[in-house]
């Protein structure tokens, strides 16, 4: 365990030094209390208090549009698989989003491996950032145990008031510390302060849905035919916002785009959404999730049930984005609360120490 500290007044300097030789992206304020990861060159551009960004950092790990291969059919079916990447430092990743990246890592390193993802990931340095308090009422990170860091970063920043305490997790992280020369060793007091902060967080964060964490899979095992899905189906507009903003949604479509010469071109993938009607439609015209209700259920099951069976991990990070973005006000916390109640598994004390 290695900790260093950075005085707040040096923060600006820190970011500009990083930006000197690498692209740095960090949350930048948009209007209406919305934030987005954007390239920055100084610390001043970075939002101070930010709720999860509109799109999660997955946009750097698996871009919305990503070239998989270029081709030239002038002389037969000739293709060249490619990977597009960018070296960058991702600053200010919240714990929920760190978990999201970890989920994607699992999916894409499972065989057959997705080398496009793995190459891109290897070029990105991740600097995490702790939430000292809830971002807003949509978050459910305590429920899924993501309110505190569980790895997945090179460096991790925690705000201690007048300074940051920084956990160095990797060699790459250490190199940044060495190179920027702005950090000091953390002392006993700093570590105590960090401990006190975490203690305080234990009081602030409590299961946002009154259910014991371990019981979540059980809730979903029994809820497949619940009427709650019908209710969601009536509301849902199938706009796809919930899947696009989700840090662990990774479905995609593969499309060929020839150039005007109709000989050369590229094959690329773009984010797709299980909420779209055509997503599961086959050539004969059948769609296997024709009802909006079935599509919404599928989305929830892909967060709370299927990945648990496959990866032993919940794929909801508790970031709250899907609820925040839904114009029909489909709310994840409310849905899960209702499912839990339906199964009689409500436990008001769950997650409250």
């Amino acid at each position: 365990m290695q900790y260093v500290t950075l005085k707040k007044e040096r923060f600006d300097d820190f970011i500009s030094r990083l930006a000197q030789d690498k692209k740095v992206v960090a949350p930048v304020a948009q209007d209406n209390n919305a934030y987005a990861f954007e390239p920055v060159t100084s610390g001043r551009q970075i939002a101070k208090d930010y709720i999860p960004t509109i799109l999660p950092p997955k946009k750097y790990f698996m871009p919305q549009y990503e070239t998989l291969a270029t081709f030239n059919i002038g002389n037969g079916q000739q293709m060249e698989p490619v990977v597009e990447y960018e070296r960058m430092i991702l600053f200010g990743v919240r714990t929920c989003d760190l978990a999201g990246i970890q989920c994607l890592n699992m999916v894409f390193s499972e065989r057959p491996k997705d080398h496009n993802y793995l190459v891109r990931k290897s070029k990105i340095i991740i600097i995490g950032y702790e939430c000292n308090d809830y971002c807003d009422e949509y978050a459910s990170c305590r429920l899924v145990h993501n309110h505190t860091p569980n790895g997945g970063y090179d460096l991790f920043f925690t705000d201690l008031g007048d300074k940051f305490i920084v956990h160095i997790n990797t060699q790459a992280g250490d190199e940044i510390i060495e190179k920027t020369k702005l950090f000091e060793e953390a002392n006993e007091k700093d570590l105590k302060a960090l401990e006190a902060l975490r203690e305080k967080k234990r009081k602030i964060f409590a299961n946002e849905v009154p259910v014991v964490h371990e019981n979540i899979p059980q809730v979903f095992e029994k809820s497949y035919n619940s009427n709650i899905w019908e209710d969601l189906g009536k509301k849902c507009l199938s706009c796809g916002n919930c899947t696009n903003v989700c840090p662990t949604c990774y479905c995609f479509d593969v499309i060929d785009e020839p150039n005007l010469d109709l000989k050369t071109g590229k094959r690329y993938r773009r984010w797709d959404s299980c909420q779209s009607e055509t997503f599961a439609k086959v050539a004969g015209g059948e769609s296997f999730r024709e009802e909006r209700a079935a599509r919404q259920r599928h989305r929830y099951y892909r967060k709370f049930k299927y990945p648990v069976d496959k990866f032993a991990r919940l794929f909801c990070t508790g970031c709250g984005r899907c609820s925040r973005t839904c114009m029909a006000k489909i709310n994840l916390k409310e849905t899960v609360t209702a499912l839990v109640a339906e199964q009689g598994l409500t436990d008001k004390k769950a997650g409250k120490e």
Partner: protein
Amino acid sequence: MAKPKVAFFDFACCEGCQLQVANMGEMLLDVLGAIDVVEFREVMSEIGPDKIDVAIVEGSITDHHAVERIKKIRERASILIAYGACACIGGVNGMKNNFKLDDIRKEVYGKDYKYFDSVETRAVHQVVKVDYKVNGCPVYIPEFVKVLKAALAGLPYEVPDYSVCVECKLNENVCMYDRGLTCLGPVTKAGCNSWCINNNNICYGCRGMVSNPNENGAKDVIAKYNIPMDLVVNKMNMYNKCREIDQREQPKKKH
């Protein structure tokens, strides 16, 4: 291989979509390298041959003469591309269908109204068969190029059947609903890269509605945000009024 003969035709419209072609800049020369433009009244004096490979048709069908003319064009062309909202979905011309024909003629032309021929506004596919559509008011040039390539390669092109919200989210716009405004993005076909919302306006639905919009859900949403329904209906009808003709006539048609 001879370059395909392409002709542009226009019906009731603002011709802005044709202008979009000129707005391509030097990329236009690449496009012109792939096709042979044989007729384009707005910028050319030439009249094309009897048989053409691709007809690009702009505008909606709003009078008897136009009905005849579009039928002739269809006969001349192997491939017909409906170009722009007016041609694809009736567009703003469809608003005319909100009124009784005689009333609106009187409103604009007074006592002489009888001289002014007019029929219910129709999208091109509501009169003749359409092979490709380039939606939008105006068309989005990258999509036009895509459709042109598909037409030249003889491949089908499907207008995205997912909502504008998808692209809007990818652009990380702050959602208009978060600002308390109605936006037709959720029920409108994507493909414009959420053009209007990127510029802080709302989506007006110029690309036509997705094939199966959740209309009741949309109404609920609007009610939630306390937005007067008549304003929203007006907005829906701004481009999409001719959709009623599809709904009316679809059961009759085979396909």
